[in-house]
């Protein structure tokens, strides 16, 4: 009975959890509500993933309306891993938030903070679950509005600026997206993904479609911080509360990437050329730019949170590069990196959050030798850093391996070489962190750092452990990612003339 409603429950659970948390107005109660809601969501997402893996795509009609008029939720091999990832990272971030909010958020706002986290989760899950283009816009805005609030709750006054900037940019992105959806609707008469794809071949003039594609892709690119539209991200990640940064870095951009993949593969067709260049080539060029330019920028950062934020921009470049390679290995690599990067970046931001809470700074030059006083947090940061480089034995290696494999299979050896070469830049920025935190004589702040409670570090350690586990035994994530890749590539044929 409940099982049949899982596709909508996975969105409603955090949504109503958020409302409850807001109504409770009590910090402790809000946390438990958030925890229960997020765990229930995770269970629902896991059950959904199991059903999809066993029995193929699930379609759910809200209120029983026909998809042509009503809203259809559709869970398939592409969205299932995303749901699972977002729900899991939600639990981790909420567990982490319990201790971190006591330092970072003034007590009157803690309940609101959990509310916003849950609503953000609901929005993100909705984007992944819904099969209706306009419904996705609504969820996009739900998640965005709560994200702006989360960022604005940061301690530093610059958080306000970052939130405002993200609000403007995010709204432009969402509006671009909805303009594109409007154009799609004008040409096909439907908002349902499945029906859009069905009716595409009947369209005689592709002009409106091309405009729709441009609007939708640029709109989503703003949300996923595709270079050069990434400029809102570093400040947003740097000044948001630690748990919010961990949540956003590991989920928000990933869902946007999912959406991009959906549109490019299922609707528009990634290999189609627009004018003189194909979409894949353009995406590939921007991805490469992101990998190199953002990594280069990361090298010059002093604030570790900002450094990791720039690294995120670069890593998103790897993911979009995998999509642009557009063969099975490449897309598998992209989806693997969506998951692996979420885990490693989550661990990294949580670890630096713990250090920030305990030592009062996230500046590299003030954290010399922090490894001696906070070995556990610094260890987790180290594991995450090694995974960012792609050291064998960490999950980062596995995803880069598939990307390189995809590039070679596509007959683009130079691309494989560039992927490896860009890892060198990661060696430089991660190496800088490692050298400072482990090998320098402890600075004053490092010596004064207080021990952090285990409940703060527990989710960090779990994520770091998973990063290593998936590096050694990659079976489970690879299975998820490759079935997603197969599903995406399977429907990409004959999308547009």
């Amino acid at each position, binding site marked *: 009975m409940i099982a049949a409603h899982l596709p909508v429950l996975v969105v409603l659970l955090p949504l109503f959890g958020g409302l409850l948390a807001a109504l409770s107005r009590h910090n402790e109660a809000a946390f438990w509500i958030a925890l229960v809601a997020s765990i229930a969501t995770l269970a629902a997402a896991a059950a959904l993933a199991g059903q999809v893996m066993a029995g193929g795509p699930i379609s759910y009609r809200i209120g029983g309306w026909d998809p042509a008029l009503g809203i259809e939720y559709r869970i398939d091999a592409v969205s299932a891993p995303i749901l699972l990832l977002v729900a899991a990272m939600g639990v981790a971030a909420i567990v982490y938030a319990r201790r971190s909010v006591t330092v970072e958020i003034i007590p009157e706002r803690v309940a609101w903070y959990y509310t916003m986290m849950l609503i953000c989760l609901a929005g993100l899950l909705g984007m992944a679950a819904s099969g209706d283009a306009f419904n996705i816009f609504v969820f996009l805005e739900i998640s965005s509005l709560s994200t702006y609030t989360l960022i604005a709750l940061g301690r530093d006054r610059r958080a306000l600026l970052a939130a405002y900037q993200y609000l403007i940019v995010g709204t432009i992105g969402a509006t671009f997206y909805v303009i594109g959806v409007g154009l799609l609707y004008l040409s096909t008469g439907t908002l349902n993904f499945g029906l859009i794809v069905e009716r595409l071949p009947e369209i005689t003039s592709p002009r409106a479609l091309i405009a729709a594609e441009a609007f939708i892709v640029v709109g989503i690119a703003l949300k996923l911080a595709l270079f*050069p539209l990434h400029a809102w991200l570093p400040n947003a990640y740097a000044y948001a509360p630690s748990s919010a940064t961990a949540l956003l870095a590991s989920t928000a951009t990933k869902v946007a990437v999912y959406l991009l993949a959906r549109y490019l593969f299922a609707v528009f067709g990634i290999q189609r050329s627009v004018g003189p260049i194909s979409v894949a080539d353009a995406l590939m060029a921007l991805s490469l730019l992101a990998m190199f330019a953002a990594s280069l920028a990361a090298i*010059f950062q002093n604030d570790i949170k900002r450094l990791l934020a720039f690294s995120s921009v670069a890593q998103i470049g790897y993911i979009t590069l995998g999509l642009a390679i557009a063969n099975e290995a490449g897309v598998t690599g992209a989806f693997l990196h969506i998951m692996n990067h979420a885990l490693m970046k989550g661990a990294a931001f949580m670890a630096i959050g713990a250090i920030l809470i305990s030592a009062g700074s996230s500046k590299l030059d003030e954290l010399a030798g922090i490894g001696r006083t906070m070995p556990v947090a610094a260890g987790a940061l180290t594991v995450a850093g090694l995974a960012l480089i792609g050291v064998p034995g960490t999950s980062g290696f596995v995803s880069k391996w598939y990307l390189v494999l995809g590039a070679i299979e596509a007959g683009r*050896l130079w691309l494989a070489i560039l992927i490896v070469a860009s890892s060198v830049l990661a060696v430089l920025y991660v190496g800088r962190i490692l050298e400072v935190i482990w090998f320098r004589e402890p600075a004053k702040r490092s010596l004064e750092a207080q021990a952090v409670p285990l409940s703060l570090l527990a989710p960090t350690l779990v994520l770091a452990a998973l990063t290593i586990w998936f590096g050694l035994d990659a079976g489970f994530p690879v299975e998820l990612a490759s079935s997603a890749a197969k599903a995406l590539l399977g429907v990409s044929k004959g999308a547009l003339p």
Partner: protein
Amino acid sequence: MTDALAAMSPAYPLIVGSLAVLLFRRGVVQDALALLAPLAALALVWLVPEGTSVPLQWLGLQLHPVASDWLARLFGTAFALAAAAGVLFALDRRSTMERAAALLYAGAAMGVAFAGDLATLFVYWELMAIGSTLVVLAGGASQAALRYALMHVFGGILFFAGLGIVAAEPGGLALRVFQAGSPGSWLLLAGILVNAGAPPVSAWVADAYPRASWSGAVFLSAFTTKAAVYVLIRLFPGEAVLVPIGLFMAIYALVYALIENDIRRMLSYSIVGQVGFMLVAVGIGSEHALAAAAAHAFVHILYKSLLMMAAGAILRATGEIRLSALGGLAKLMPVTAAAMVVGGFSLAAVPFTAGFVSKSAIMAALADDHAALAWFLLTAVSAGSFLYAGLRLPFFALVNGKAPDTVAPLPVSMKLAMLVMAAFNLAIGFSPALLARLAPPIGAVKVLSADHILFQLQLIVAAGICFGVLLKLLAPKSRITIDFDWLWRELPAAVLGRLIRARKQLQGFFEPVLTTARSGIGERFPVWAVRLLEAGNWRTGDIALAATALLGLALLVAAV
């Protein structure tokens, strides 16, 4: 028992040791761990049964993390000995980072020696680059470490590119003999040669190693280049192009060693030269020649570690490493002096040292193959080697000149390390059978025969007379000579400088035009470039503009 052992790479104890060292504070426990790790690795080198381990399935690849045969054991033994002696020598050095890095470096080299497939090999290869860079960095020279890292990244990329191509061949990732013909094998060969210090990148050796600490250079001298020789023996035996490359390296290094003033730079050049000997033997490619190359690598690790230790000891005791500023140390530092003489003589293949045994094996292999040019050139280089290693270095450091008033006392550990290494050098020199047991194919050469010894004695005495006559010319002088590193250290700056000058001239010409253009929109562009790379805060409007521009561009392109 043996099954479990078969999956144990001798690299593991060293890598585990490297991590374990990080966990403990400086002290007895850390010292013991650091010493124990190479000894455990040495034991494993001989305990791991010969043959290839059970394949490991990973990401759809068949990996063989451990494969053992006499060649792997020979190099494994050398690496373990060098690591053990190096740790002993460095026992007194207060740098946990260097210690951990050195063990990691040694472990990676060991992993290369026992790798059973190309992918495993590549992973250890890169690990070796990381470990060695950290060792250089621990010496405090970050600029040199960066150059060193970039050079190895360059080599690593070449290697990886080659790997990517050859992996698609029917042989897959299996270790096999390549012919330098296809692009894949050329890239592979080029990547290995970068690590071997071949031209045109030979200068990285002498650029980086002398900037390590007094103990770091001991580790550096042992692993990277010899691991490259090992991989060449495995993958490119009999590759004809190696012969001229090796000959060039031998002569190039001799020329620079003869005029070098910094002892450790001289020894670094000498590494390149000796690797040149090995490359020539690998290029000849007969079974005998390959074994001789391997044996020479083994012996080279023994005497070059010894020499680097002596140089390190001098640097530590006097704070000085330039020959022109040293002198008369023989009385003040007898153990170091003895080590330097034994090491130098071994390098110059004086009879009854280890170097004589292995170099004789190489020369015999060349003679068997009737490689006349190589034989005559290398014989000449041998005579020249005695000039700098057997005479110039000890004479100006230990005998000639004014001795300093006092030198800092050396800890027992350092002396012990030098004595152990010197003993190894002499033991093999007096009993070549020891070496023949490690490298069976060279057992056939009778090394200590009267005509061999006589030949070599004449060669070195004649070189000695030359040294005696031309002593003044060879006196150490502080000078800087152009080397290959001009290519990557000076050329770009020179070209850039010229470009900048050219730009200035052009600017003078176009300035009026530019000013008018700049007052318009032109001024925005530099700002954009800076913002893209740097983290300067963007205005919200700029982000929106970027998005709009991208959209406009997409629409424009689509409309075309």
